């Protein structure tokens, strides 16, 4: 790739005027094709992001929001959220929700991918059915789970009752609400993990397994010696995407518990959403500060991933 473009520049440098003019028009053509994207990124990503930083550095009351005369307060908003009681709670909840979700999604997704790896009767159809949770609108899944876990009339409690377990207030007691939204989120994320890991398995050469079989390796050995190590790059990207996606989850938690009761299922993303849009009194400045903190966490995770990948290829 690199050497190709080198010879290309060399050729162009040696060529006559006409060629360099052609190259220049080529560059303009490329720019023209890219223009819609660049304008789009500037207007709909860069500017909202800039506004978000601007919000976090000023004290925007709803009135100042409309009039645009908010007072500049520097890092006060960040100081305020870091010393807020909700912060440690939300950080802990975010960590529990995210790590438990991606660990369980990955483990279940990998087990299913290995299960479906060798084709059997109906395997294609069954694999397609596993995509359903991922394709449903989140509001549909979240409201369905709310009813499944309903204290008085939910099927989950009815089933537990059959085993003599008393009523659990899944969504309304502080001890279980985070667990409840985590379970729903794991269910949502399994299909994505299954599809990616399954595709990764298809790329492992099958003669490796045949050779291992001839050497007398059992299924467990084949998994730990071949499948798992060779799947490492795919596993890493799956976990990273899961992490980035789970950090920003709002819908499922907001619809099921609104972060409650008493902040028991409030993550950083929920905290930010609630401050800005969840109450009658929008408070955009701290919400923006929390949001920027989330971006920072996702970014650090991304960098860690790039680092890991480099080590892999080095």
């Amino acid at each position: 790739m690199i050497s190709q473009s080198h010879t290309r520049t060399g050729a162009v440098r040696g060529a006559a005027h006409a060629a360099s003019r052609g190259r220049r028009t080529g560059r303009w053509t490329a720019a023209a094709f890219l223009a819609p994207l660049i304008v789009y990124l500037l207007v709909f990503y860069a500017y909202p992001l800039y506004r978000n930083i601007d919000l976090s550095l000023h004290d925007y009351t709803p009135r100042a929001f409309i009039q645009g005369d908010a007072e500049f307060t520097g890092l006060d908003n960040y100081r305020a959220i870091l010393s807020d009681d909700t912060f440690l709670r939300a950080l802990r909840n975010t960590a529990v929700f995210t790590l438990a979700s991606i660990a369980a999604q990955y483990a279940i997704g990998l087990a299913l991918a290995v299960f479906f790896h060798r084709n059997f009767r109906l395997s294609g159809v069954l694999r397609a059915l596993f995509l359903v949770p991922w394709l449903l609108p989140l509001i549909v899944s979240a409201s369905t789970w709310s009813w499944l876990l309903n204290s008085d009339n939910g099927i989950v409690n009815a089933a537990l009752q059959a085993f003599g377990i008393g009523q659990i207030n899944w969504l309304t007691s502080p001890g279980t609400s985070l667990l409840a939204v985590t379970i729903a989120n794991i269910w949502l994320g399994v299909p994505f993990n299954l599809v990616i890991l399954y595709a990764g398995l298809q790329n492992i050469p099958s003669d490796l397994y045949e050779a291992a079989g001839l050497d007398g390796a059992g299924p467990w050995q084949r998994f730990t010696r071949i499948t798992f190590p060779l799947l490492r790059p795919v596993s890493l990207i799956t976990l990273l995407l899961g992490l980035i996606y789970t950090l920003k989850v709002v819908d499922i938690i907001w619809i099921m518990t609104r972060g409650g009761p008493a902040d028991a299922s409030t993550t950083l993303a929920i905290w930010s959403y609630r401050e800005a849009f969840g109450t009658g009194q929008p408070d955009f400045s701290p919400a923006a500060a929390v949001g920027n903190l989330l971006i920072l966490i996702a970014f650090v995770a991304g960098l860690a991933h790039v680092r890991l990948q480099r080590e892999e290829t080095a």
Partner: protein
Amino acid sequence: MKTRHVKTARSGWKTALGVVLAGVMLFPVYWMVNVSLTKTRDLRADPPHWFPWNPTFEGYADALGQQLPALATSLFIGLGTVVVTLVVSLPAGFALARLRPRGTRLLDFLLLAAQMIPAVVMAMGFYAVYLRLGLLNTVWGLIVADSTLAVPFGVLLFRAFMAGIPAEVLAAAQIDGASTWRAFRSIVLPLSRNSVITVSLFAFLWAWSDFIFASTLNRSSDVIPITLGIFRYIGNNTTQWNSIMATAVIASLPAAVLLVLAQRYIAAGVTAGAVKD
């Protein structure tokens, strides 16, 4: 002969286990359909009815009576989002794959970084911008906001696909004197049909499913998409769960249609970018 018999027996066992696992996974979906067909007075039955023996369509009548405008709004927003996504990402994917523009690496990085930004953050930025532009509580504002869910994905997918078009095909067009635009329009676009379908399906599905942008940028509007319709429904009457679940079933129809008609495009979309060959 004997080994073959053992093999089918073993794979039959796998099929049986697969059916059970899929059943467990899809139980919430079954339950949604079951509740949507249950009579209001049976909703509080203890133990709950496992199967809608005498189904009722009250729930669906309620849902359609109240949510039909919201369904139409969601359809319009979904289609609008597809158009915006394609217009922005098709030429960009072509340029990145074929025209070797400057700053390719920077754009790659930006497109990846864009996907890390939480939707809450985007929603606040859009809220601030739309407040000034008077785009709050409009369908157009929502179309633009929803397209941000799909544009980075679209660019990356088109780029990956178009990079795979054989160079000879394009070179032939250049010899014929076709301009780059003509080559793009009459050669690259027709060849990219499958990836256009994949991106359109996802853009539509994401816009149709969007809750965060709708609940922030459109929250005091009369014209609301179906996701917000269901959310308000839950808030208003928590007793009518059969109607809520009926609305949820109807809102799931596009996903079901996509799964049946376009499964291979979906699998192509999920794995794009995540797995390198």
